[in-house]
């Protein structure tokens, strides 16, 4: 197992202390040590985006980050996304638009979509598509995902 290190991390609002092998990446830590299996692993290369989570509000590829790097930080996974406000609207829009099929990319896709809505928020489809280009979806044609994000931005703008 090699060397271990104690980390203190807040995951989905819960304070957690664990000894982790220093080589353990964040996605394995979340999935195997904490049982937060909503974070999915598709490539372990940082390419497919299935493992995207938020660390201190920034989206990160949890397969490219080591668990020891989140010491003293806050991690939010799909299980911890608040079911209110834009997140709730986004989930409803994904459902309405059928913006997911197998659901394997969905947690990462939601994380990237929330980041886009919060930080960019432009309903321009081309910009949304560019932003999602780090998240592979092999089932949908991406169109319904773009539609869902547009819906949330446009409704948000009207209210």
């Amino acid at each position, binding site marked *: *197992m090699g060397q271990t290190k104690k980390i203190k991390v807040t995951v989905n609002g819960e304070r957690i202390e664990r000894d982790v*092998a220093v*080589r*353990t990446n964040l996605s394995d830590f979340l*999935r*195997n040590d904490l*049982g*937060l*299996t*909503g*974070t*999915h*692993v*598709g*490539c*372990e*290369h940082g*390419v*497919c985006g*299935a493992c995207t989570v938020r660390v201190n509000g920034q989206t990160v590829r949890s397969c490219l980050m080591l668990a020891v790097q989140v010491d003293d930080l806050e991690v939010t*996974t*799909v*299980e911890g996304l608040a*079911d209110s406000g834009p997140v709730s609207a986004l*989930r409803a829009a*994904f*459902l*309405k*638009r*059928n913006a*997911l*099929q*197998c*659901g*394997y*990319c*969905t*947690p990462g896709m*939601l994380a990237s979509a929330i980041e886009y809505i919060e930080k960019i928020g432009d309903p321009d*489809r*081309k910009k*949304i*598509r*560019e932003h*999602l*280009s780090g*998240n*592979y*979806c*092999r*089932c*949908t*044609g*991406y*169109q*319904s*995902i*773009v539609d869902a994000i547009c819906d949330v931005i446009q409704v948000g703008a009207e209210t």
Partner: protein
Amino acid sequence: MTGVKFDFDKPTKLIGQPEARLDAKRLLHGRGRFVDDIQLPRMLHAYFIRSPIAHGKIVSINVSRAIDADGVVNVFTGKDLENVVEPYVGVLSHLAGLRSPPQAPVAIDYVKWQGEPVAVVLAHSRAQAEDAAELVEIEYDELPAVVDMEKALDEGCPLIHEGYDSNLAWQRTVDVGDVSNAFSNPENFVVKKKFKFGRHTGVTLEPRTSIAEYDPSDDQLTVWYSGQAPHMMQFIFAKHLGLLEENVRVISQDVGGSFGIKVHTYGDEVAVAAIAKLLGRPIKFTADRYESFMSDIHARDHVVDARMAISASGQIIGLEFDDVTGIGPYSMYPRTSAIEANQVLNLTGAPYVIPNYRATSKVVFQNKNLMCQYRAVGHPIAMAICDCLLEEAAAQIQMDPVEVRRINLMADNSYPRTSASGMKLDELSHQAALNKLIEMMDYNSLRSDQLELRKDGVFRGIGFVSMVEVTNPSPMFYGIGGAPIASQDGATVRLDAGGGIHVSSSVTEQGQGTNAILAQIVADVLGVDLARVKVTTGDTKTTPYGGGTWASRGAGIGGEAALLAANALKEQILDAASVILQAKPADLDIKNGQIVDAKTFVEKLSLSDLARTVYYRGNELPDEAKPELVATRHYRVTDAPFVFTNGAMAAHVEVDIETGFVKVLDFWAVEDCGRVINPLLVDEQIRGGVVQGIGGALYEECLYSDEGQLLNTSLADYLVPMASEMPDIHVAHIETPTKSSVLGAKGAGEAGTGGAPAAVMNAVNDALRHLGATIYQMPMTPERILSALAETKADH
């Protein structure tokens, strides 16, 4: 057809409505349950050591250092499993002459492709197993690898299998009419092209994964598997591990994409089950992406010499081609690797009237990963051969590609009839689909814009495809040839005490919305709220027996079984209600979960009250009343070997002649999948299929070195379509319900993947042709497009 009458137009109808998939909520909350999410007590992790070479003899394997490593419980080689697993052979009797040698799940003595399992390390964690794998010492004697399928049948080519006289696995020829006359007649124009279709693969975002658990006390094997056909796998595990089928339970819950990749028998998964049996504890195997590229089946890989003869007035007179396809060292078990070639022979030219048709396909062994059925099996090749030759021929006689289709498409009122290859076709709508497509895309404006933009050095192209898709296969597809693959499926529908409905079905869900449409059909038939219908699929212990999901059969076959079962349950409910209410069943109906007067819709009794009376207070019923509130029905297609769907698609592309990059600007698809159960789901199925088709046409290719080394084994090197590259895809429907079922649904899952590559190839050639360049190789990479353009410069 069963004589069941069904009103699809009632005011409360659900079939045909764009209902949201209620079971998708779990996935949006991260509460899916994929196989790798499961952790069982005492579970070990398997890591497979795979052959680093394409062909060789295994001289020795030394596992002693690995066995002593931290966390390692055991290491198995192919020989260690030899007495536990019966080897398998991927042949079917209806594919006469197909041969393939017995295959062991883990290599014994010889390795025949890079990526073939050679040994497996079992440890307490995947990381420990991978660490220990580095300590396993394996010595190989490398043998010459057969890589290029076009040379695999050459005299003097090394033979992959001992005892075989050549590397040929199978060949078949279809010969109809007088092809030589069609091509020798000087009045006909002839176009001739060599097509190349690269290997690609499914890239399911969730890699293949399974957990096998064996309980020796009652000889029970349970396998959680990420796959499409639980009952088929139940048979396979039982047969090859020497178990009774009823002692094998296969569970397939959330599956992170499958696309045909996850409907085959993989050595690593069989080995995991065998080791679970040997060790009596749960074993998990999850492929990483590198392993996925080397061991998930690859697809396509064809070289086709093809020609078409066309009259001056634009009629197809003849079509002829020779296809070679490389399948790796074995035919995949149990579906075989010859079905793809068979589909190419059967389907090429199927939308058109073609009087003279000759086609040969040779299926050859090679030292590459196995090739087998992936989404739209054979369709992209079949559609590209005919539709790309047709547009090339139209260009030669200066005819518009739409016009040439109008001349040659089978008339919508001319069915039933057969295709050039003899396939029985019925209820197709090629003409209506093309008309709708042209209307949707505003074809004339696109053409005039194309000419204008050319003046500014912007090269755009418009390409079409008219296509068929094989769906709803009958037993003629696999069962007839001896495969343990059911073509019939079943559904059990039950009214529970609370008034909710439970459906259990043998078709499976991989995200396409199978569970949602089953619920929708059953809720529609029974007159209950959609949210009150719960669906179980993917468990051999709790569902009726069936084939699972492949060949776009979930809706057409699984849906029909659900409709029939729900209809039978409705009769049972009304019978029971008639006793309780002392009325005639015919005077009653169900609406909004209530038994109502059939004419006035006055509510008489809730379904819950009815069920509670039957289940709890049977004393209130006369003794002779023996109500049943559960019904099972099965369905198979009986009146044709397959049900065909059709579609018309168009791509609009821009080719940058400086860089060779192709941008797909727009894509249109008109699909006739019979009755549409849920347009929201069908539309995105078609779009997803189109995107996979565009991937095959432009980006995706498994690249091999001359030594048989797979060169691109990560998602950084193997390109799949991303959001920014994909256009909006406009989808419309023609609905010609199949008369072979009450529901009338044909399949829809593969149309986009089958048709899009030809449309994109035609569009690229439409952009390039006036420059003197054409390209008939997929994927149409920038490099290949620049080469095609460079050849024209060299010519002048």
